[in-house]
């Protein structure tokens, strides 16, 4: 039963989105000291899974309730406008990042920087690159999650409709597409480089749909299955993943002729070990009293602000990560520099979250649970 009332804002959703954004930022400055302590070093999944799953949860809060008969066209338009704002943000981020990389390359006389960040095609083939930029096929290094999100939002009306009607059918359809993608190597082509999208939307839509379904369960206040056996299984799986990743066993085993997506680690197509790792982690986290723990805990508010304004914060984070990468090329990398860069970048993102929260709700209300129904798919 889909409730008529808006879903009260779940602060922990904002909090975990904030954690995911902070992690993505840290991971986007490769090999910096703190990047060795992020989620991906302790298991198969990383912050991208959290980001996409919570995008599904947030999209559910924002749109599912309104998706009844007579409202679908309006809601589809709302989602379309949201997708367009993501598209515009992607363009702005692309321009800023391109400028930073171009400046780094020019000032050091090192064109290898352009090449590695995949901006060299823009220099060599500006016309086809422009086509690639407009059609989202041009995805330089680190600039590939927003295109995924745009496609997921474009698919959202269909997915939301399916989840609203019957979650099992929705999961079946979405899972079927996931399976077909893995078995028949379906995907979207990049352009002008004849490659595939780094995040294959046809695979990642399954995680987004899982997020939509969980969002609906939360909105309806229906608990997830409670089972001690499931808790133990999730815990054991996380330990196994930890051993494989930390022990350097990735790639050391081959379970062919089983299809590769069942056993290998593949981020592009969200292979099953990654998906299960995230699901196990998320299930165990839901067993923790995070919502109660966060209530009134002022120290967590910066992360909540970040999560609540995820699009602008993410965009700023991507640009700052480029600044971080360029700085680590020009100045000798050291633990001190790494900590300074990450602290500075996270501080700016938190400050942006605070400013946007202040602008929206007023200074004193920042971080406190907002008005019901304020959740957005941002």
């Amino acid at each position, binding site marked *: 039963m889909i409730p008529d009332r808006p879903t009260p804002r779940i602060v922990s959703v904002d909090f975990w989105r904030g954690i995911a954004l902070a992690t993505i930022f840290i991971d986007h400055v*490769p*090999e910096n000291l703190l990047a060795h302590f992020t989620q991906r070093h302790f298991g198969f999944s990383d912050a991208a899974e959290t980001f996409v799953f919570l995008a599904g949860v947030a999209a559910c809060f924002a749109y599912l309730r309104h998706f009844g008969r007579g409202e679908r066209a309006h809601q589809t338009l709302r989602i379309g406008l949201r997708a367009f704002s993501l598209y515009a943000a992607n363009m702005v981020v692309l321009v800023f990042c391109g400028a930073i990389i171009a400046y780094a390359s020019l000032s050091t006389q090192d064109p*290898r920087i352009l090449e590695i960040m995949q901006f060299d095609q823009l220099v060599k083939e500006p016309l086809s690159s422009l086509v690639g930029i407009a059609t989202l096929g041009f995805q330089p290094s680190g600039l590939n999650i927003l295109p995924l999100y745009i496609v997921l939002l474009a698919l959202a009306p269909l997915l939301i409709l399916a989840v609203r009607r019957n979650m099992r059918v929705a999961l079946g359809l979405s899972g079927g597409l996931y399976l077909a993608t893995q078995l028949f190597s379906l995907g979207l082509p990049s352009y002008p480089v004849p490659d595939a999208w780094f995040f294959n939307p046809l695979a990642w839509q399954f995680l987004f749909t899982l997020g939509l379904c969980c969002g609906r369960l939360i909105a309806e206040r229906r608990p997830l299955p409670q089972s001690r056996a499931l808790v133990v299984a999730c815990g054991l799986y996380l330990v196994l993943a930890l051993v494989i990743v930390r022990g350097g066993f990735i790639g050391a085993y081959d379970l062919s002729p089983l299809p590769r997506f069942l056993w*290998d680690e593949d981020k*592009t197509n969200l292979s099953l070990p990654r998906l299960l790792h995230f699901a196990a982690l998320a299930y165990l986290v839901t067993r923790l009293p995070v919502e109660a723990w966060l209530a009134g805990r002022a120290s967590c508010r910066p992360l909540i602000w970040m999560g609540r304004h995820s699009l602008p914060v993410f965009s700023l984070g991507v640009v700052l990560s480029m600044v971080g990468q360029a700085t*680590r090329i020009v100045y000798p990398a050291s633990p001190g520099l790494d900590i300074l860069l990450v602290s500075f970048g996270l501080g700016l993102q938190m400050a942006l979250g605070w400013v946007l929260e202040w602008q929206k709700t007023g200074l004193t209300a920042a971080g406190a649970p907002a008005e019901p129904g304020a959740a957005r798919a941002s």
Partner: protein
Amino acid sequence: MTPATAGVTVACRVPDPYLHFPTDLKRTERLMDLKRPIRILVVGPAIEGPEVIEKRHSRLLAALQQRLPGVGFELLDGWHGWRVAEEDFDRLRSEVAEAKPDLILWEVGTPDALASSDPGEFGDVLVRAANWAKSRDIDFVFIDPPFLPHVPHEPLYGKMVLAISAASSQARVNLFRRYAAMQYLERMQGKIGAPHPHCMSELLAEAIVRSVTR
């Protein structure tokens, strides 16, 4: 050292050791004997540096075909390869499962140099990747980063070049020493003129052909 004379454009000639692969490319040789095409996966950007898509690996293909006219080479368009080696290795496994190459040419080291990766950890990944390819009976060649003069942060590349050399020795796989070859040509500029812009494809093809025909 005396520059190699046979088969290489004058402006591209480098000493023989730069063109020597210590281990055989067994699978490639076998396929040549069987007169079957050789599928080569190039992981990384154009060997020469930025290049339009259509021509990305065409010079390498032309140089191989020119040297071994009867042999069918198929150059598979690998991905650009812009991540640090650890992440590229993950992608490499996907690509190999998809493309089923006979020979992998992996341009490696530039992203790790620019990210100031730990050379030891970087080398460990390369050894794992090389052993992984060998266990699948796939021929494997590392290509180290390109060299450029007058770049203030050039020492970052030097560390990775050493790590790649050590890893290739440890894993007993071949290494195309692009960095050293470009450095040599740069030093020789006064004597032989500016290096030809397409030397690296030519030298790589020469090294591969020498290895499979010795």
